[in-house]
């Protein structure tokens, strides 16, 4: 029984991180209809930024978060401004392929620059844990979970409680109508994608605290984002929290009771079943084309 509760807790902590990793994907899809296949590489870049600042400057990983936020914000800003904005109105396949091109360039540049070595961020407090009624919770996992929740909450407030958020949501709802009302949609698109990249990079930084990082880690995170976002409802940002937690729990339980490899297969079957039976997500608030 203790094994069950332990994997439940692991799944919950994992799910929080998954949610933070996927919120940006949902945001970009919901507002622009762009399926960003280079999404996972933003996670990878965020993780490596934290890693290098920590190794080279010796700054505590938690204090590197503002750097990641800033660098990825500008990366997203320029990618959207210079390339993706030019594809508005063309068939969606164009954006899939363009972002897959980015994925190839980013992940292979990273591979060339940093080699395929597996790396970890090892701090003085990395191994510390809290024990509670026989259950073990690593400090760093708990801290990343809390930070991940803060990221999602921050995004929620930005979208639903600020003027900028209102403009973003208006553009998502009806591009042409928003344009008629005087919303500068290309500015909103650029801001949205920059924001999506920034929070994704931030999640990547958080991941480097507890996961092994390497240049090819991106694509699996893109796929995770697919699952999370489909579960929670495509384009409905708060849904990613639920999607992430469900996926985290399923993966954790399947890994405990079956094998790690089959848990990936289960994830995909779950994704397929949800898409076919309930494409608007479990909460029923996603965008359905």
């Amino acid at each position, binding site marked *: 029984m203790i094994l069950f509760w332990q994997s439940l807790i692991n799944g919950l902590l994992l799910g929080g991180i998954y949610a933070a990793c996927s919120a940006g994907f949902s945001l970009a*899809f919901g507002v622009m*209809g762009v*399926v960003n296949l280079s999404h996972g590489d933003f996670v990878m870049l965020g993780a490596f930024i934290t890693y290098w600042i920590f190794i080279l400057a010796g700054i505590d990983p938690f204090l590197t978060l503002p750097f990641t936020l800033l660098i990825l914000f500008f990366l997203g800003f320029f990618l959207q401004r210079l*390339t993706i904005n*030019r*594809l508005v109105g*063309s*068939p*969606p*396949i*164009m954006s*899939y*392929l*363009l972002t*897959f*091109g*980015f*994925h*190839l*360039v980013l992940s*292979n*540049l990273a591979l*060339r620059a940093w080699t395929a070595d597996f790396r970890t961020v090892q701090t003085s407090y990395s191994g510390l844990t809290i024990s509670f009624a026989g259950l073990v919770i690593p400090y760093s996992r708990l801290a990343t979970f809390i930070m991940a929740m803060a990221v999602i909450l921050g995004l929620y407030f930005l979208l639903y409680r600020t003027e900028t958020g209102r403009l973003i949501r208006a553009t998502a709802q009806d591009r042409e109508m928003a344009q008629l009302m005087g919303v500068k949609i290309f500015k909103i698109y650029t801001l949205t994608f920059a924001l999506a990249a920034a929070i994704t990079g931030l999640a990547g930084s958080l991941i480097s605290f507890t996961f092994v990082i390497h240049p090819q880690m991106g*694509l699996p995170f893109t*796929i995770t984002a*697919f*699952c999370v976002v*489909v579960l929670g409802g*495509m384009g409905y940002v708060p849904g990613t929290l639920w999607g992430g937690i469900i996926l985290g729990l399923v993966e954790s339980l399947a890994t405990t009771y*079956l*094998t790690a*490899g*089959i848990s*990936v*297969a289960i994830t*995909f*079957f779950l*994704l*397929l079943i949800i*898409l*076919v039976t309930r*494409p608007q997500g479990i909460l029923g608030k996603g965008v*359905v*084309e």
Partner: protein
Amino acid sequence: MLMRRPGLNGILLPLLVLGIILLLIPLLGMAGYRLRLFSLIFMWVALAGCWNLMSGSTGYIDFGPVAYFGVGSYCTALFMIKGGFPFLLSIFITGWICAALSLVIGLSTLRLQGAYFAIATFAAAEALKQVVLESDRVLDIDFFGGAHGLTLPSPPSGIFFYYVMLFFMGLVVFLTAVIQKSKLGYGLRAIKDAEQAAELTGVPALQIKIRAYILSSSLIGCIGGVEAYWLTYIIPDDVFNVMRTIQMVIMTLLGGMGTLLGPVIGATFFTLISEFFGAKFVYDYLILVGLVIVVVILLMPQGIIGTLVKKRGKSSWLF
């Protein structure tokens, strides 16, 4: 406005001449690397053509054709190793298995639209890959060979595969031409232009989409089987590799989606440049491919054929 489509006659003769030349080349003493390169180009033209048959003509972006390539490879390998079947019979059965599988997957996913269809097909391909990769360990059997893959019986010479790949390329191009002129082709284009309107005027949209999907998938499965025998060694990470899907898409897009010659030109061009880059810049190859993709999307989103059409100011399905 109903546009008159040009007849096949204008293009039939050059294609036939090209076909005869390609049939004769190996007899004139082409061998070694060139023979292999030609076979590789034929394979990719056929694969891109299959993808074009489904996605190019309907606008439904299939992001999981590699599922059938992988299943085809494994079916053929298993029939030949475990069943001791001859190659051609294995390929034939493989085609039918892939058709049945695509009927099951198609019936569920083809009701979805846009990004949902793309993600669902992608998920199906990855799920199948994981099943092949893991079932040996989970069920404790020795069947798929897990991550170590399978080794096939030693294959005949390169000339055999040259002709088999040439056959599949010819078949796909021929089928595309026939379908474009047929009722099925008109139905597919109607779905691409306005699915709901097509359905309201009596086009059985789901049925037509499934027919195109099954045709494309079973051919991809057969080609996967041929490649498995050609390379004699298959592993899940290679035959289910997502890069294969992306290559089919890029090649078709490069040439021009929904056109007859688009996949032919796109796949030939792309295979040649990747052979060139792959040999010259071993480590930077994928970076260069990524840059080519970005440049093509931004500068010529219509593909080579589409760009030519614009320049000549004509609208036709060929040029």
